[in-house]
């Protein structure tokens, strides 16, 4: 199979990248440049910005959990795609196999739900 249908995607990417990078690159030269200390401080509604640790600081662990859940289900989706595309040729066998697979993931899902992994506050 030739890769030529993929070339225009790279072209589109290159055009968009050129446009975007050019935009951010010329931005400092177009506007006025009158900086002062207050203007360069982080914005916190006018009060003195709270000091931040180097590297952005710590992040609540629940976001980490959301990301882990996302990976689990995204992998499930990636398994589902080829199955769905060739569904007609797989027939009953494919259906039963996918039933078992989704059932397994569903058990994990019920477990996460029960243990409070799907609770946000």
């Amino acid at each position, binding site marked *: 199979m030739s890769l030529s249908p993929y070339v225009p995607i790279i072209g589109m990417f290159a055009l968009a990248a050129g446009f975007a990078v050019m935009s951010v690159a010329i931005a400092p030269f*177009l506007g006025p440049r009158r900086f002062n200390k207050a203007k360069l401080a982080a914005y916190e509604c006018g009060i003195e910005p709270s000091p931040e640790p180097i590297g952005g600081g710590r992040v609540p662990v629940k976001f980490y959990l959301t990301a882990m859940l996302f990976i689990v289900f995204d992998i499930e989706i990636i398994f589902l*795609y080829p199955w769905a*595309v060739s569904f007609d040729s797989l027939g009953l066998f494919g259906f039963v196999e996918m039933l078992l697979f989704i059932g397994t993931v569903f058990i994990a899902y019920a477990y996460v739900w029960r243990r409070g992994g*799907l609770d946000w506050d």
Partner: protein
Amino acid sequence: MIVAQDPTLQDFGHDPWWLIIAKIVAIFVFGLVMTLLGVWFERRVVARMAVRPGLNQAGPFGLLQTLADGLKGAFKEDIMPRTADKVVFFFAPTIAVICGFTALSVIPFGPMVSIFGHKTALQVTDVPVSVLLVFACSGMAVYGIVLGGWASGSTYPLLGGLRSSAQMISYEVSMGLSIVAVFMTAGSASTSQIVAAQRSGQPISFFGLDLTAPGWYAILLIPSFLIFCIAAVGETNRAPFDLPEAESELVAGYMTEYSSLKFLLFMMSEYVAMVGMSAMVTTLFLGGWRAPAPITTFWAGANSGWWPLLWITAKIVIMLFVFVWLRATLPRMRYDTFMRLGWRVLLPINLVWILVLAAIKVLREDVDSTSRNLILAGAIVAALLAALLWPSKKKPPAPTLEELAKSRPAGSFPLPPMDLQVPPSPRARRAVAEREPANVGAAPEGEQE
């Protein structure tokens, strides 16, 4: 009768280089113009929904307002906070924009046409995994937002970026699952083939009636359609799911520290993403570039030549209107209800729907009629049993007022008697007595009798 020529996958990849460049530039300009007009459209429609005139100063109907805003924005001071991570702060807006435009490259805009003697499809390109490409682009766009928030070195953008990433990955799961049903029905993951599969419905026999099933997957696969639409709104960070830029909580979310052209790029990426999502909804569920059914019955040529450009643009604009309509109608959701909707409602419904659809398809094609009836009866019995035996939580009866009063701890404040009648305030009575009697609706003086 002129038959619309559906491109097949073999038709892509043979364009000469100048045609590829022309198509890329055309789609890029389409994206830019749709962004400019989309901002105008949104402000105008929201204004009309709020009974205001809206944009009407710059150009006819205020059409040039977005252009004026963009030019003004470009000549503003470009501020980078001292605490920012310089390189990431610089490149984060470009990631969001690039992803938005790249996703547009596989949207089918029409059938095979002839451009200067070359037969080509009105689509930049199509590959067997086109929908995956769009999906990947919308996933990569998260990086622009979360990195922009993180690199600002400021509190509000960091929180906005985190929220945004959590929101986008949550709704990406729902969106990805809702496409599975489309793949199953169309038997392909390329956008042009999905549009071709929605050409006409299958004839079905329903209790002796011979009907034609609708071709559009929006009707055929309505749960997937609804879930995809909800997820598309969540994925593009639009109201009522615009938590990352909740003004009352997070100022402007991840773009608080951005100014000048960098800010404009973030704005543009949002609108390009909206256009891309509208185009995807159109392609996957609304028949793509094909004219809706009543038009094709009395105009056979509606689907041939360049006319499909009109239909797909109209469909995209209708979907954009729905985006704006939602913004004007619904209040912003709270973060926990929003995440709960994605993970606890949309996800299980989606999985069950995929299995139900697969079961229906397998039963229709691969199983003979006796065992089909047996399986159907078994499924119904199982569903009934599950409904009967489902453990239901019995709510304890609500305590009466007397019980509540008795259960208070010792040393509480004394309660007033339950049948206390409060007399009206003497001040209120005096005000009523001194007021002039109302004269509304009575005949004017002098004309009476």
